[in-house]
C-alpha cells in the first residue's frame, strides 16, 4: 500500500507542476505595456501623454519634399496616415506608434517615409503644449477596419501605459497620391 501511495504522490505532484506551468503567464504577457483605451471624447490618456486620433487617410502613394528633393513612395498595399493631437503630461518625450491590424499583426511606422515632414519619429512633445503630428503606416487594406493605433512613449514601455485609439467604423478616405505638407 505504501509504495502505491508514494507513486500517487509523485504523480499528483507532477500533475500540479504541469498545471502551474501551463497556466503561468508568459514573460511577454506579464511585462507588456498596460493598455489604456480612449474615452468617450476619443482622448486616450496615458501616464506620460494624452493623445487623440484626429483622422485617418489612406493612399496608394505618398509624396513629400525633403532637403529640396521631391520624394514619391508607392506601394503594392496601401499607406495609412493617422493625424494625431498629442500633449505631453509630465516631461518632454517622443512617441512611438504601432498599427494593431484587424488580423492582430503589428505594423510599425513605415521606414520608407521616415524623412516626411511632421511625422512622429522626428517630433518632440513638450509638457502642457498641444501638438499635431502624423504617423504613416504601410499595410494591406483589410488591416485598417477593426484596427487600433497604439501609442507608447519611446523607449522601454514595459508596464507603462499604451494608449489605444480605435479606427472609426467608416473606412478612411482614399486618395491616389497624398501630399504630406509640413
Amino acid at each position, binding site marked *: 500500500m505504501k509504495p502505491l501511495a508514494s507513486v500517487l504522490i509523485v504523480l499528483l505532484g507532477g500533475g500540479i507542476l504541469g498545471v502551474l506551468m501551463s497556466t*503561468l503567464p508568459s514573460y511577454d504577457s506579464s511585462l507588456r505595456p498596460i493598455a489604456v483605451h480612449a474615452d468617450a471624447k476619443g482622448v486616450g490618456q496615458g501616464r506620460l501623454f494624452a493623445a487623440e486620433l484626429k483622422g485617418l487617410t489612406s493612399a496608394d502613394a505618398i509624396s513629400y519634399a525633403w532637403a529640396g528633393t521631391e520624394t514619391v513612395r508607392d506601394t*503594392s498595399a496601401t499607406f495609412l496616415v493617422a493625424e494625431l493631437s498629442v500633449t505631453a503630461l509630465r516631461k518632454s518625450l517622443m512617441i512611438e506608434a504601432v498599427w494593431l*491590424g484587424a488580423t492582430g*499583426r503589428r*505594423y510599425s511606422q513605415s521606414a520608407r517615409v521616415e524623412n516626411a515632414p511632421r511625422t512622429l519619429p522626428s517630433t518632440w512633445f513638450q509638457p502642457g503644449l498641444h501638438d499635431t503630428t502624423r504617423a504613416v503606416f*504601410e*499595410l*494591406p487594406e483589410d488591416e485598417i477596419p477593426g484596427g487600433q493605433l497604439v501609442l507608447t512613449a519611446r523607449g522601454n514601455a514595459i508596464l507603462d501605459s499604451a494608449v489605444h485609439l480605435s479606427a472609426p467604423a467608416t473606412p478612411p478616405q482614399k486618395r491616389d497620391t497624398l501630399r504630406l505638407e509640413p
Partner: protein
Amino acid sequence: MVRRPLRSTFHQIRVQAFAAIGIVAAIAVAWWMKVEDARAPHAVPQIALGEPVKVGRAVFTPQSLVIRNAPPSSANGSGRKLVLAGQLENATGESQVAMFGFPEELPALSSGGTDFPAPTVYLDRDNAPLKQLQPRIREAVSIVWDVPESWREQEVTVAFSTQQFKLRDNLYAKASWLLFHPSGTLRARPEVEP
C-alpha cells in the same frame, strides 16, 4: 551484531536498484540523443531558382541571378555586380527591420575560392537599401554583391541561413530569436546581362 530482517534488506535493494536504473536510463538517453545528433548531419536542402527558402526572419524566393555591369561601389570592386533578385516576405506577425535576423546573417556567396564582400539588399520599388519589411507585403528585392576583378564567370553557390524562433525560451519563458542554422543552398550559373 544486529540481524536485519530478510524482507527489509530486499526492500532496500529493490529501491536502490530502481533508483540506479532510473539514473542509468537518464544518462543513456541523454548520451544517445547527443550521438544521434552528431551521427546524422543535417543535410542542407538544395534549392533552385523559383523555390522559396527561409532567410533570417523572412522567406526569400530567388528568381534570377545575373552579372550586371555597374560603377564600382568600392575601391576594389571591378564594376561588375552579381545580382540575385527575388521576392522577400516577412514570416513574422510584426514589422521587421531584422529581415535577415539579428545579428544579421546575409546570404553567403562562394565561387572559385574568391572572397566576396557582404552584399547589400535593395528594395527594387525604391531602388534604395531595404530597411524594413511589413507583414503580408511581399517585396521585390535585389541582393547585390560587388564582384572582385579576379573572378571569372562560373557557377556560384549562395548559402542561406534562418534564425530559430522560440515562443517560450528556457530562461524567461520569453519569445526569443535564437541561433541561426543553414536553410538552403542555391547553385547556379549567373547570366551575363548585356
